[in-house]
């Protein structure tokens, strides 16, 4: 039982996960002193971790969904925010990863002119990610999606090179089109049921053609934003041409926010219309994404492009879980949460390490990185540790996630997914060991380093993130029990 005082406190705390980043963004925009921006960013990032820890401890212990009626209006007319165990884990993950990247970016830009414009956009992006997680209303989610898309596009464009601008423009078109498809679904739902709130919708939703159409358009829109296999074309370009902190958050959190919306729609809000055929179709696309993404990563000529294609493959695993959740919700849900957190931490750390290498070398061509392990010991260490999690080697978080998926595939009598899970792990070995192999071979010619920019101290937070990917693997039983109990 939550006593009265605590519930009032929680009512105040939930809006904070959105308000703190927004206030920080505005403060960074108004004040153009770089030191001030950095200090306020650091402070807000740590406050955000504190807030999300309080939320996580409350919701995971008491198994409750906390609903806040913003302005006291209540569901049909007003906007509700809600936090349950799953959302609290997502918010905690987003707080930890964004804090790590915030600390990294303070040193990454090294007083570039770009940094002035980076901070406000950065905090708008974090606000939008948290907004997507806490929002409990299909239209409010659309607003958060647009804020997410616009700030992400601007962050890519900040890089200013022609490739980055082209990638940003393409990402903008894909993002706007995806959000409009989602909005079309919202319009159909509102015309049919006259409500927007998740809970009211899930109570009223019936298996009709309208609901199916709405879910289909919303799914198509979100699949574009998640970059599932046939719609992945924009992701490698956008993620590999952005600056390193931006690539890190795009792969670790932005893709997950779109996935989270899809997940909520399919298994919470409109679950009445979800059938075996549709989940299997999504699962097949996920399987193709795992194989194709890994293949392209193996053939990638640049380090950041390789990491970006690895995101395409890892997103495939998330969708592979859809047919498993349909048959066996408990186990596969826990697996998905694990996969999201493990991949988020690992991919963020990996992009940060790749960014440090690219910054010092001035490029990230894989042909020219022979023997960098001696010059970049910390970066390669982080790359190796996070690789273990992406491949799914024990005792990493990625291993636990894949183990749970395998278990769930066997218990739900869908053994064919096991084949993809195994071969996906092998392919991941192939492309990640390709980098490590190059890094440890001695080069014929000397590496040309920009000594001013060659510093690995900024990778401290990345090292902590890569540590987290291992720690969540070691405490697996405790964490899975916690997550499983909060779902029931």
């Amino acid at each position, binding site marked *: 039982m939550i006593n009265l005082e605590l519930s009032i406190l929680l009512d105040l705390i939930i809006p904070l996960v959105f308000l703190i980043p927004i206030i920080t963004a505005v403060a960074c925009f108004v004040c153009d002193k770089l030191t001030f921006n950095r200090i306020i960013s650091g402070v807000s990032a740590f406050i955000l971790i504190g807030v999300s820890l309080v939320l996580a401890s409350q919701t995971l212990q008491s198994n409750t969904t906390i609903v806040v009626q913003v302005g006291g209006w209540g569901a049909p007319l007003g906007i509700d925010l809600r936090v349950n165990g799953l959302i609290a884990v997502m918010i905690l993950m987003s707080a930890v990863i964004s804090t790590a990247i915030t600390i990294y970016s303070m040193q990454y830009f090294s007083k570039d002119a770009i940094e002035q414009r980076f901070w406000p956009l950065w905090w708008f992006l974090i606000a939008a990610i948290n907004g997507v997680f806490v929002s409990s209303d299909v239209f409010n989610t659309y607003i958060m999606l647009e804020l997410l898309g616009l700030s992400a596009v601007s962050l890519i464009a900040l890089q200013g090179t022609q490739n980055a601008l082209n990638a940003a423009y393409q990402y903008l078109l894909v993002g706007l089109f995806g959000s409009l498809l989602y909005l079309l679904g919202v319009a159909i739902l*509102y015309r049919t049921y006259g409500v927007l709130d998740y809970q009211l919708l899930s109570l009223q939703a019936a298996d009709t053609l309208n609901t199916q159409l709405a879910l289909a358009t919303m799914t198509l829109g979100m699949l574009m934003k998640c970059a599932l296999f046939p719609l992945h074309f924009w992701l490698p370009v956008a993620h590999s041409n952005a600056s390193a902190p931006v690539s890190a958050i795009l792969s670790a959190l932005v893709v997950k926010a779109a996935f989270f919306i899809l997940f909520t729609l399919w298994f919470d809000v409109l679950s009445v219309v979800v059938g075996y055929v549709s989940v299997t179709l999504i699962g097949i696309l996920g399987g193709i994404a795992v194989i194709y993404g890994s293949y392209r990563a193996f053939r990638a000529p640049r380090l950041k492009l390789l990491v970006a294609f690895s995101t395409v493959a890892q997103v495939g695993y998330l969708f592979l879980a859809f047919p498993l959740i349909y048959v066996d919700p408990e186990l596969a849900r826990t697996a998905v949460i694990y996969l999201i957190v493990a991949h988020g931490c690992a991919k963020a750390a990996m992009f940060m390490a790749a960014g440090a290498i690219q910054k010092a070398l001035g490029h990230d061509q894989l042909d020219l990185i022979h023997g960098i392990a001696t010059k970049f010991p910390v970066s390669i260490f982080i790359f190796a540790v996070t690789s273990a999690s992406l491949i799914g080697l024990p005792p990493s978080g990625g291993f636990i996630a894949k183990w749970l998926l395998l278990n769930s595939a066997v218990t739900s009598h869908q053994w064919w997914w096991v084949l993809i899970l195994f071969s996906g792990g092998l392919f991941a070995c192939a492309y990640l060991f390709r980098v490590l192999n190059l890094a440890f071979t001695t080069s014929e010619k000397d590496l040309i380093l920009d000594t001013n920019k060659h510093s690995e101290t900024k990778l401290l937070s990345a090292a902590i993130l890569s540590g987290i990917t291992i720690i969540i693997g070691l405490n697996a039983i405790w964490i899975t029990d916690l997550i499983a109990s909060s779902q029931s």
Partner: protein
Amino acid sequence: MTQSELYTACGVVLLAIGLIGFLTRPDFIRKILALNVIGISIFMLLIATAVFDINIIDPVPHAMVLTGIVVAAAGTALGLNLASKITKLNKSARAQDNLPSVSSIKSSENLSTENQPNASPQNKGESLK
């Protein structure tokens, strides 16, 4: 045919026009215009639900459409700004190299491979002003 049905029909026709425009036209400005047409068609579909009786008008679709218009304006502004930046960069690159433009959005999968260490030194320093 009631007014609401007329609005719905117009919304669907506009949606079709917007989709065709967005998916078939390659150039920058047309794609952004097509996205706006799609947006307006969805707003029409929403507005059409507001009146279910002359005396009872539902305010929620109005609120949604107003918010949607603001978002669409922001997206359009960003898109046009990016398009003009890309065109300027292309022009300056062409003036320096006397080479044909490389900024076809279709060939973007290969774009990432173009980022050779010494391929485009003139782009490296240029940041978004």
